[in-house]
């Protein structure tokens, strides 16, 4: 299937090139974000009536995992308010082109951190505290504020947006799954880039900033590290940047060879399964353990969580690889074949989120009217009773998502394994078994 260049439409192109539409969305997002922090800190401690919990963990999460990531990849990052204050501070400007001299320290991120291990760790940290985070407005407020300040702090020390690129726990998994999205930003003609003087897309010019994500657009081959900030569309003097509509998961045709990215796939896959069991399962003991941070039960939960993600899941996967005879190093096969787990993991999250979101969506209506839980009734919907929605389509919907994910990952496995010339069967069997576990947990 061919690609369709969306930026060929002058309307889309101008909307992306101009800073104002994006700025308008940014401002709404930033106001919402700051309101979520305040609501978390000063609003009611009852999670299901607090804006920060309901809007972040139900509304935003639903949009992110069910719509934004599958269809727009890093589309959320294009409008995310978290890096904004830091970027404004770093540039000493909100809209105008950059000054000559870099502000602040502007250091380069040390080489050992230039991978996504910090993101893996930051995601895991949130994951291990997730039961408290998901249910306690205070904690959600503090975490949201901490992300904002971390982004500001890092932008005064390091060049570009180090927070987004190397630390953001959300950015890590959006980047992984953005490879499956049917949207991409790419250059149009490699030759034009080769001859382009000064590479303003990377270095910046009077038209805009150099790529905040520290990627050279001329070399982009997958969505993972492009934040869709649209700066390169503004800076490229040769009109060589395009936003394309493309087949789903086009990036996965070229499997990654990076171990940090392979482990991100396991972290996400494992977390979706653990959450499905702990949060949506009938076992009270797991919930107690996950919630009571600091107790010995919680430490057991942490150990089991980490053992599943770093031991059991990758362990069985590796055993499967060892069964296939290959002359390539195991590490290489491991990373390449883990590509097949990306669509599987995304659909695990979709299936998990469906039940979580549909059963709790009615809180959104109530929280809208009384976002802080102070007893307001702005839209007359404060007393809307809790009511799970669409429970009759839940099981078929989850089945569809999980079976679809399995087919998608089996096909990805076939492509990845033909790239490196080994059998795809162990990877397909592995995906099949994990899918069965997910059926058992969710249905």
């Amino acid at each position, binding site marked *: 299937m061919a690609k369709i260049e969306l930026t060929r439409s002058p309307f889309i192109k101008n909307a992306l090139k101009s800073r104002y539409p994006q700025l308008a969305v940014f401002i709404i997002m930033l106001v919402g974000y700051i309101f979520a922090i305040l609501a978390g800190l000063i609003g009611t401690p009852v999670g299901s009536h607090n804006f920060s919990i309901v809007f972040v963990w139900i509304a935003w999460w639903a949009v992110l995992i069910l719509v934004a990531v599958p269809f727009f990849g890093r589309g959320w990052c294009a409008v995310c308010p978290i890096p904004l204050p830091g970027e404004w501070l770093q540039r000493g400007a909100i809209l105008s082109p950059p000054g000559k001299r870099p502000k602040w320290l502007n250091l380069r991120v040390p080489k050992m951190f230039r991978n996504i291990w910090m993101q893996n760790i930051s995601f895991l940290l949130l994951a291990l505290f997730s039961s408290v985070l998901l249910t306690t407005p205070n904690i959600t407020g503090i975490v949201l504020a901490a992300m904002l300040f971390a982004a500001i702090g890092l932008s005064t020390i390091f060049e570009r947006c180090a927070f987004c690129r190397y630390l953001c726990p959300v950015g890590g998994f959006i980047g992984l799954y953005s490879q499956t999205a049917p949207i991409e930003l790419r250059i149009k003609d490699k030759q034009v880039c080769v001859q382009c003087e000064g590479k303003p897309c990377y270095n910046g010019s009077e038209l805009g900033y150099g790529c905040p994500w520290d990627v050279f657009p001329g070399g982009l081959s997958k969505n993972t590290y492009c934040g869709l900030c649209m700066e390169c569309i503004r800076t490229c003097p040769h009109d060589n940047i395009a936003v394309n509509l493309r087949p789903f998961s086009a990036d996965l045709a070229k499997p990654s060879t990076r171990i940090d990215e392979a482990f991100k796939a396991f972290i996400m896959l494992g977390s979706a399964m653990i959450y499905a069991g702990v949060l949506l399962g009938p076992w009270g003991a797991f919930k107690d353990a996950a919630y009571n941070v600091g107790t010995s039960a919680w430490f057991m939960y942490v150990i089991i969580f980490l053992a599943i993600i770093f031991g059991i899941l990758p362990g069985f996967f590796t055993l499967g690889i060892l069964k296939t005879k290959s002359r390539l190093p195991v590490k290489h096969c491991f990373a390449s074949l883990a590509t097949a787990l990306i669509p599987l993991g995304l659909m695990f999250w979709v299936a998990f989120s469906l039940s979580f979101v549909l059963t709790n969506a009615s809180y959104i209506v109530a929280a809208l009217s009384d976002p802080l839980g102070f007893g307001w009734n702005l839209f007359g919907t404060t007393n809307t009773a809790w009511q799970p929605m669409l429970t009759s389509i839940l*099981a078929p919907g989850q*089945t569809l998502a999980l*079976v679809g994910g399995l087919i998608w990952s089996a096909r990805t496995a076939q492509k990845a394994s033909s790239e490196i010339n080994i059998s795809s069967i162990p990877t397909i069997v592995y995906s099949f078994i994990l899918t069965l576990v997910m059926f058992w947990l969710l249905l």
Partner: protein
Amino acid sequence: MNPRLSLLLIGLAGLAVAFAPLPVQPIAPQERTFEIDARQYAYSPSELQVNHGDTVTIQLVSTDVVHGLYIDGYDISVEADPGQTASLTFIANKSGSFRFRCNVTCGAMHPFMIGKLNVGIDNWLYRSIGLATLAIFGTVISMRQKA
């Protein structure tokens, strides 16, 4: 066999697996009573097994704060005050697996206070296993076709 034809057959089999009505075994309906203890944030027992057509009575006993029990799909509920027993009776006339959950805000983990009611066999679990198996066959066949 022609691979296209086999894919078509697999597709048809998939539709059958997804939508064909399952035979309901004619088991004489019974009356069943369960006593369920509710505490923050779990039910005990947390899984109930009944047959299609049974008349089910749930006696909900709350051991700490006010808790509720709402059954997805059946859309019925009951609420129990601390130390009190509340009772709910219904006819299990829909098959499958249904979550029941607390419908009275009872503390932090309230949204995750969940149990499971199985009426007959868990329809979607078996259908989904069948579909996943067919899907794998289909994928392998299409792989052969290309090879």
